[in-house]
């Protein structure tokens, strides 16, 4: 099945991105396709490559980047939400791209299920 994922919170402060990540990994393991992961609201902070967690903590930015590389997943950061929060190409981690909100709607249209993770 084709799944679309919406992430509305950044890493660390809320569990949303953690849960979405583990859900995505499990969906891939079960043979589903991830049509797109869309980062909105504070979710755009997941793409900040300057993020440097403590060594004994998970590194969600890198985990998303690696998952995108390994499984060719489309990670889209909303441009409007990103601009106001200061997420720009110069600090964008590998595997993420910045694009419009229409990409979220299009994912809703194309995916068989849309799952929302937030606060």
């Amino acid at each position, binding site marked *: 099945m084709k799944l679309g994922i919406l992430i509305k919170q950044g890493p660390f402060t809320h569990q949303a991105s953690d849960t979405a990540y583990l859900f995505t990994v499990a969906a891939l393991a079960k043979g589903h396709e991830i049509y797109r992961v869309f980062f909105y609201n504070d979710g755009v902070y997941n793409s900040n490559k300057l993020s440097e967690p403590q060594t004994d903590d998970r590194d969600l930015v890198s985990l998303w980047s690696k998952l995108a590389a390994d499984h060719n997943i489309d990670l889209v950061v909303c441009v409007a939400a990103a601009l106001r929060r200061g997420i720009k190409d110069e600090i964008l981690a590998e595997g993420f791209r910045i694009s419009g909100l229409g990409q979220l*709607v299009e994912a*809703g249209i194309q995916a068989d299920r849309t799952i929302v993770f937030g606060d």
Partner: protein
Amino acid sequence: MEEWEEEGPEIVKKFLYVNRRAPYGTIYALECLEVALITAAFDQEESLIFMDDGVFQLKKNQDSSDIGMKNFSKTYRALDDYDVERIYVEKESLEARGLTADDLIIPVEVLSSEELREIIDKQDVVISS
């Protein structure tokens, strides 16, 4: 406004945006409205629900000049220009807050929880704000 795929697919789905948060205290109301407006360009069957504190988003006479934030409440009127006409407000939520449809900035359909449940039951994509 953002860019979007010009060559929209033929599929028409039922999109529902569920608004349960008050405006200004958090940005969710504003950013959800932005998605709702973009969605209108995709020729999908779009609905908005306002329930719990979400009904406060539509309270008329908002004036945010003294808190320095953007007053986006008039933008709800643009939904009509974009032919987004399925706008539902939960009756029980309004009543618990001492409000009526007359207090709202746009015309809406006020439905009971029971009726709203049937609206929710018809959707393909449900996005919470």
